[in-house]
């Protein structure tokens, strides 16, 4: 399965609310989250990809039923976007929570597995951070 352009744009917008610019010293800022999530989507088995697709759809239109506003997710204030994601993550419905968790996982996989993040955290062989050195001593 492949993302449409609209889905890619929406995925980017939702993921940027999850992983805002400036996170981890700004090391995720240059990542095109929508494009990377789209790439991962195209490699994922359909039953899992479909949850992402539904998740993006539900989040995008959730202001209609959660905030009772005639707006989409992209058209509301950041604080409202965050509160929507928070409410979905704590939904009494297990599948809604799972969907929300998968969107967070997608955002983290897309934004946080780059070399800049690893270097910032001192992870793996990209150069040891001060933290890593201290913990080993």
């Amino acid at each position: 399965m492949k993302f449409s352009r609209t889905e890619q744009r929406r995925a980017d917008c939702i993921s940027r609310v999850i992983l805002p610019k400036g996170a981890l010293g700004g090391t995720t800022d240059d990542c095109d989250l929508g494009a990377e999530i789209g790439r991962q989507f195209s490699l994922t088995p359909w039953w899992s990809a479909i949850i992402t697709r539904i998740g993006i759809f539900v989040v995008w239109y959730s202001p209609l039923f959660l905030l009772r506003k005639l707006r989409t997710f992209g058209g509301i204030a950041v604080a409202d976007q965050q509160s929507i994601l928070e409410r979905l993550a704590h939904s009494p419905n297990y599948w809604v929570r799972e969907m929300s968790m998968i969107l967070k996982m997608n955002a983290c996989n897309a934004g946080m597995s780059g070399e800049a993040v690893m270097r910032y955290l001192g992870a793996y062989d990209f150069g040891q951070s001060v933290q890593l050195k201290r913990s080993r001593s």
Partner: protein
Amino acid sequence: MSAGFHDAAENGIAVDADVIIVGSGAGGGAAARTLADAGLSVLVLEEGPYLPSASLGYKTFDSLHALMRNGGQQAAFGKAAVPVVQACVVGGTTFVNSAIIWRLPEKVLAKWHAEHGLADGFRANELDDAYALIEKDMFVRPVTDSVATGSDRKLALGAERAGIEHRAIHRNEKDCKGSGRCLHGCHNDAKQSTTINYLRRATESGAQVFSHARVERILREGSKAVGVTGTIRGKGPQAGKPFRAHAKRAVIIAASVIQSPNLLRRSRIGLDNSALGNHFMAHPGTSLVGLYSEPMNPWSGASQGYEAYGLRDTLGVKIETINVPPEVAASRLPGFGEKYLSMLDRLPYMAIWSVALKSEAEGNVRPSWLLGGDIIRYEMTSGDFERMRQGLKRAAEMHFLAGATAVLPGVHGLPGTITADQLSVFDSAPLDGTGYGIIATHLFGTCRAGTDPKHSVVDAHLQVHGTPNLYVMDASVFPTNTGVNPQHSIMAISTMASRRLASA
């Protein structure tokens, strides 16, 4: 074709051998080495690719996609979806596992003897012999200080103060550099997966290992197994072509707890056997994060370095440190916006411990046209969750005893973070799977061994009841779950059964 590793997509497949082994993980690797050493010609057919360490990446999504069955998206379904992680690569799940080594507990073996009639086949002295060989050849030793992490030291301290038995984890590795990436496959060839150890030894004794060789049916003449058919996968001139291979002495299925029973079923073997594909068991696990004031760097060190095993007999719970890639750790943190950003900032100060449960639940696996070919049904019991929440509570208590300033329970309905005076919140944790982030990595039971041909799939020598020359040698033959990490017992049982087969 010569002994060694071959890509079936490039070269096609050898057409006959004394023994054909389907699957190259813990069970298949041990069988291959034992039988090749005994002088038999051995053909190992593995569905996944052969991946040298130089080709391995560090990004979790790409690693899951390259190494795991269904890109790591396989799950068992009940009230909740429980991810069931298995590798699909030469080396099987030993290629991605944490290299933790445990012998089968005596109590478990005694139960198998008493309740499943396995005293004759699973002799303690023969198993001890196999363990000793594996431990020597796979360089098993406790995690050394050079790759122990802050999290390991905290677990040791917390367990000591809580009065729970603990130790540095024993692992099969040589010169582990503590790069914390076992899940991505070992970049340093330190972890002794079957790929770099047992299969390599097997090839030195003449075995041929074919990657991209997916077996689809077992061939029989009368009731006797005589070979297999399948399709070549991957990319190359032979990809997509069917193959057929013949075995003079035996066909050994070591395709894992999910694929072995389904391969038998697709081959119309054991269809009237009530045990085939049933009694699916697991050690479901979840994780608990402790926040400390000093850095833990939960992506570094031995992937799993320390364990508290003293609750195994009472709660059926084992607590282990676990280091995971940053993006995996981050995706489990609570909150959005400022709350989440401050969590991310504290990521280096988190120690992650897993709580794995010897679950009493049983599920089943069946072939399916959907979901990548296999469907798994599994529902943990409320008794399991009673023990799970007690296990989480003890782990949280240990975190606080070790100096954590807060703990992140990661359970729906509980606060995102708790302090030491809030341990009682675990008493009201949910009693079903929808409240937890559970995954299942240790699987058992779908071709269980036993003497009763109606209620077991293989006999005490791992031969399929009623099908001469057909054996199953992987974790599916375990009649119960074990409460400890299974790779070592799988390899020992497979070694023992293969020795008998070779000398028969």
